[in-house]
């Protein structure tokens, strides 16, 4: 009985102390490569679209999933494939919220590598068409 009580308390205090933070590197990569425009909480500002509560919508289509890698900020960033995949995954976990409809399959370096070799030239129209297609597919369901 005592063990049953102690176990959750042990885990809880470990959480409460929470001094170990292995997300430091990925947060740093987000700060240095994305945060300037996308803002600290992903809410965006002005012409910078909000990722917070929206970014998960893109995962509803394969083209949308690829878009998040091919968008110039991702594709041409100075990050390695591993670190770009880690930042994209972190963005999903941190910002997608309810916009994520199905379980998220994390990006990997090998998925990201070939996609970022085809960066998008004209983003605005492409993005609009993509979102319309996703919304259309939603409406048909």
């Amino acid at each position, binding site marked *: 009985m005592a063990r049953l009580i102690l176990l959750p308390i042990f885990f*809880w205090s470990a959480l409460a102390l929470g001094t170990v933070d292995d997300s430091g590197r990925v947060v740093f990569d987000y700060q*240095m490569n994305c945060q300037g425009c996308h803002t600290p909480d992903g809410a965006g500002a002005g012409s910078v679209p909000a990722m917070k509560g929206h970014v998960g919508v893109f995962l509803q289509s394969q083209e949308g999933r690829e878009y998040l890698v091919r968008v110039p*900020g991702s594709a041409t960033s100075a990050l390695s494939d591993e670190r770009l995949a880690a930042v994209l995954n972190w963005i999903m976990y941190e910002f997608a919220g309810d916009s994520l409809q199905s379980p998220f399959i994390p990006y990997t370096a090998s998925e990201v590598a070939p996609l970022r070799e085809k960066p998008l030239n004209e983003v605005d129209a492409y993005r609009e068409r993509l979102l319309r297609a996703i919304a259309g597919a939603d409406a048909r369901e």
Partner: protein
Amino acid sequence: MNFFDKVFEQRSRQLAQRSSRRGLLKGLGALLVGGASIPLLPVARAAGNESPGRPLEEGDPSSCDYWRYCAIDGFLCDCCGGSANTCPPGTEMSPVTWIGTCHNPADGRNYVISYNDCCGKSSCGACLCMRDEGDRPVYRPDKTNDINWCLGTSSASYHCSTAIVVGVAFDD
């Protein structure tokens, strides 16, 4: 003997009357839960400069030599009625910023600095500071400070720049 008997009888009756059978569990539970919540108290976070995310501060924020200004290009808000962290009254802080890293000589670590511009009034004109370390040409728009970063604000007129510590930098 009789005296001891009486005392012990009285004490055990008192104990039985005043304590419940689950009292021990209750007390133990409160102790464990209470003990586990001690790290949550704000006292633990008041350690200030000792915490890993916060830099040791020394130097004058109204001087261009101040460590956080290593990549700045503009007027220091500290000389314009604001501070290194805040905008002067009547201006609006741009949420869209350019971000760099600076070395803090006081604790020997590198920090991520967000140079949020304050916008909505004409140029402050005081304490012009152009150190530009890490500044890149405009073909790297996210890493250049030669563009007006008053983006995402209601007015695009630049007044002065802040230098806010947003995190600890990693070495590449």
